[in-house]
């Protein structure tokens, strides 16, 4: 039944028609991909960056959140061609010599249970905190994370962690 409904093009071979050059986590990357791939599919299946998660795949859950030119976006709804030439940051780019303050606070608050939503939340929270550049309230965090679903924690510890991280980041900037 399903096979009959599918247009013939769905079963055609998929040539890597696009040659993309992007900056991913600070590194220049050249990668070939089929034209109908999303940025998420390029990250996960061409670059092996499997931190960004494929959840609902239609923009509801936010598990695929990455930063494109500094803005938190859904990589499952970004075409690979739209990300071409842009700067992409994924959760893999977050940890350098030390954990990022948001990661550190999430760890200390035990703000992840199954952890599937965590990469998306880290990306959305980092983009938000670097944009506002100050300590934030719980309400502001809830608003900023309104596109990231978590089905385990009930959000309390996640919000605690991000409020804590915002205070640390604001203090570090002042020093």
């Amino acid at each position: 039944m399903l096979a009959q409904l599918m247009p013939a093009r769905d079963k055609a071979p998929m040539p890597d028609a696009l040659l993309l050059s992007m900056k991913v986590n600070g590194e220049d990357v050249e990668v070939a991909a089929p034209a109908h791939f999303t940025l998420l599919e390029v990250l996960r299946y061409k670059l092996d960056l499997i931190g960004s998660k494929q959840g609902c795949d239609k923009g509801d859950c936010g598990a695929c959140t990455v930063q494109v030119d500094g803005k938190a976006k859904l990589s499952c709804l970004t075409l690979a061609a739209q990300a071409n030439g842009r700067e992409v940051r994924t959760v893999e780019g977050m940890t350098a010599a030390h954990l990022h303050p948001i990661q550190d606070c999430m760890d200390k608050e035990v703000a992840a249970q199954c952890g599937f939503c965590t990469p998306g939340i880290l990306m959305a929270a980092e983009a938000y905190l670097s944009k506002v550049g100050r300590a934030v309230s719980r309400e502001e965090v809830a608003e900023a994370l309104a596109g990231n679903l978590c089905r385990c924690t009930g959000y309390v510890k996640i919000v605690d962690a991000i409020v804590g991280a915002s205070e640390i980041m604001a203090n570090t900037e002042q020093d």
Partner: protein
Amino acid sequence: MLRLPIFQTKTPTNLEELLSAMSESGARLIAGGTDLLPNLKHRLDTPETLVSIDRVEELRHITWDEDARALRIGAGVTLADIAADNEVGEHFPSLVKAASLVASPLIRNMATLGGNINLDTRCRYVNQSEFWRSAIGGCLKSEGDVCHVVPKGRSCAAAMSSDCVPVLISLGATLIQVGPQGRRELALVDYYSSDGIEHTQKLVGEITTEVQIPLPAGESAAHYSKWTVRKSIDFPLLSIAMNFTLSSQGADAVIEEAIICLGVLAAKPKVLRTDKLVGLRFGDEVTASLVGELCFKHGKTLENVPYEADYRRSMLRVFGRRAIRQLADSR
């Protein structure tokens, strides 16, 4: 995991290239992609080529036009940028509210005003996976030939679910369309038709480039209310945009003109007749009740989006009354 159908992509860098790419057969425009890509993943369309506007700078302006006394917003401006813009906030708070209530912050970082204006109509029987739809044999808007919302209905009853459109209509916005036949301007209210499948007056190869919103001539008060299942992410269950022209400042002002536009009823946004409101005192409880009654009386809801139609219709009265009360209280 939802796979996209196979297509080619084009990323033109200026308006001319964009129009030429769109004039080819099988081309479909992608702006933010936040509604189009889920629909393609559900196989509601299988275009040959997606033409992205994300590199066309000409569509990304918010400028003040002194001659026309209007604000001009490019179709490629994201909803997040509209919500954060000082000029929009100062003159059109109801538009800022509508833009900032769309879906989630992540989606607002991607979704554009042009995309919200050209948003495809939605229905609980259409916006489902291909597998789900195959179980009921599709419908008028997908693979079938029946309507599950209106039994024996011959025209599609899918709902216009944009948050910005009712507000822009209430503000008297004009749409700029550019295509192979040239440039044309039309009132946004005339852009929509009642057919859920072909719900806009868009011509083949034509794209939306800009929206112009005239500055209110006198004292005015505008509002947008949206009711959703969850506080974020969801499309509206009902939406009401209001724009009142008032005789003076203060709570004892008299209504000189009222535009009330309801969304999510069917494919066409519904502009109510509001003659009865003219001359009434803005802050009166009687006026608030009348606004609620008007929304209820003319807001014929269908079972095309979640929740029962009767419940949604009753809530139109509640939200309509609350909206004008809130506006009056804030003055």
